[in-house]
């Protein structure tokens, strides 16, 4: 187990290094740049040159690259070009918001997806099953930004069920511990803050969860149907085991294997979806930060750090998924 983890961590470092190299050159090959963005079109050549030199963009690209690598390794990501704040501070502020949103979405997707997929499989070919197939197809097909605005229009404008945007009501005096507002409220016993944050979380989390939810339902359904056809289920039937025992002990665990893999892969989709969801609900997390950093000034240091963070999160989540695979399936443990 230790060897597996250490090998995967080395892979992680290599992947991140390769990715950072790609991102470095890709960002710099985009038309425009921080200098144009900061100074605008009517800046004089002199000011442009001054700023270029001040930001270090006058040096040969490989020197910039070397400096960049050194900074990444030492954990120094520099300052935001837009605001001058340290990148770590900018990201540190936005990260918990996205974590809260993504975790809520994953909880919805898994918590609803596995039971619904299982139910659909049990009702194979009947009304519930067919309805599930149609609804999940719609869930997969609807773009996040469309569904987001639709829900927002219905449930915050038409009937005021949920707050339209933000993470917490303004003027609510909440203490910041982890940056996860729902959790903070529980930790500090400010339950009104917790409830308020949760209320704000419902629509964005559901919007973000739709696609992973639909996919998890489908995978679970297909997987349960596969397992029900397995010989060992017939053996369990031949033993005279009760239906509940067979489902719990023999069907569910085997059926979960493909689902777990899917959950890992959906993390990527979740990060991408967060960009759109956060925009719709003005969430103020990493997604908002990415769009602002691209459109508002080509903030190279922030963008580089954001992409690095996304890659690390994706790889770590998939590492956890692979490790949990080994817990569920003893056949994987041997290698």
């Amino acid at each position, binding site marked *: 187990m230790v060897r597996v983890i250490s090998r995967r961590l080395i892979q992680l470092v290599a992947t991140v290094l390769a990715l950072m190299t790609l991102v470095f050159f890709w960002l710099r090959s985009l038309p425009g740049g921080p200098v144009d963005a900061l100074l605008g079109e009517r800046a004089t050549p002199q000011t442009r040159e001054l700023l270029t030199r001040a930001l270090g963009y006058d040096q040969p690209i490989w020197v910039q690259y070397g400096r960049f690598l050194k900074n990444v390794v030492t954990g120094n990501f520099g300052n935001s070009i837009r605001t001058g704040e340290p990148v770590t501070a900018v990201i540190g502020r936005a990260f918990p918001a996205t974590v809260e949103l993504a975790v809520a979405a994953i909880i919805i997707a898994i918590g609803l997806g596995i039971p619904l997929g299982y139910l659909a499989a049990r009702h194979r070919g009947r009304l519930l099953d067919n309805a599930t197939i149609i609804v999940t197809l719609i869930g997969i097909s609807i773009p996040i930004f469309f569904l987001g605005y639709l829900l927002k229009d219905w449930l915050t404008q038409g009937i005021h069920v949920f707050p339209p945007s933000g993470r917490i009501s303004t003027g609510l005096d909440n203490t910041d511990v982890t940056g996860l507002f729902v959790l903070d409220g529980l930790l500090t016993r400010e339950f009104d803050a917790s409830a308020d944050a949760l209320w704000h979380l419902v629509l964005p989390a559901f919007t973000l969860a739709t696609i992973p939810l639909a996919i998890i339902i489908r995978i679970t359904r297909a997987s349960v149907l596969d397992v029900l056809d397995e010989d060992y289920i017939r053996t369990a039937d031949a*033993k005279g085991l009760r239906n509940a025992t067979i489902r719990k002990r023999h069907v569910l*665990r085997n059926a979960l294997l493909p689902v777990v893999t899917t959950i890992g892969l959906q993390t990527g989709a979740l990060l991408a979806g967060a960009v759109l969801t956060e925009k719709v609900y003005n969430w103020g997390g990493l997604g908002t930060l990415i769009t602002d950093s691209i459109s508002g000034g080509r903030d190279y240091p922030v963008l580089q750090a954001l992409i690095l963070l996304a890659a690390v999160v994706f790889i770590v989540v998939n590492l956890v998924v692979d490790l949990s695979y080994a817990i569920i399936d003893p056949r994987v443990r041997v290698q």
Partner: protein
Amino acid sequence: MPLLDVRDLSVVFQRKGAEPVRAADGVSFTVEPGQTVGLVGESGCGKSVTSLAIMGLLPRRGNRVTGEVLFDDTDLLTLRPSDLRDRRGRDIGMIFQDPLSSLNPVIPLGVQVAEVLERHRGRSRQAALREARGLLDAVGIPDPARRLKEFPHQLSGGMRQRALIAIALACKPRLLIADEPTTALDVTIQAQILTLLKELVDDSGTALVMITHDLGVVAGLCDTVNVMYAGKVVERAGRHQLFGEPRHPYTEGLLQSVPRLDVDRGGRLHQIRGSVTDNIPWSAGCAFAPRCDRVIDDCIGDTVPLEPTFRGGALRCTNPVPTEVPA
């Protein structure tokens, strides 16, 4: 009174837009307590379907089962599903063809044995595991304490089949149904498993229904043999009669098809021409007629009935292989 009395058991598979398939067609046979009965035939003759129908293990949809399966004078086919579940694993055990796929890959072996005892004997997990250890020992699995914690993929093919036998016999059932239990194993292991089965059923007085296409298995194990073709029993006889004087041309063909070591290497292996799919419906005569060497005009026309023979067996043939002893 027979322990198991199968009467006119038919299984018809129905699918939308397709002709219904009669996989088992009026199968009748009995098993006395402690007796070993064989069901023999080629792939697709309906022997596995028959056994699954007896156990109520056929998929719930897409098929129709008719007839009677009397176990202890109770018709298993009309039993409530929960009552049938109470009997499966307790009164009737079953062993399957492929021991690897028949064991759950993600559950330790010990639990897979113990859960039968928990279900039918009301044992606690601890007590059931202790008992399971003894069961694994009884079926010849070395170091059973360690094996209890292992998973199916860590066991050899022979050991997996032994484990399945231990599971099937855990509650000391009065009937054991073995569906091609040695087909997936190599020859040396086959012999070990058969010996083990024979010992176990002899010691415990368990009746055994042995489903196989392997006549060698039949010869070593069975008291009575039912030869099946295209869903029907075509010949029933005691082991010695069947091997000594087969009456049905199909039985004779099967016996001749066993490769022999005492024939020259150049000699052609005997085969029954055609395949199971070359048949006519039983309603139009004898399904085996298109492949039969002894076919006569009378074979086509009406269903050929299964008629008792003077030796206590039964035969479904218009023009049987003649016997030396006059009838």
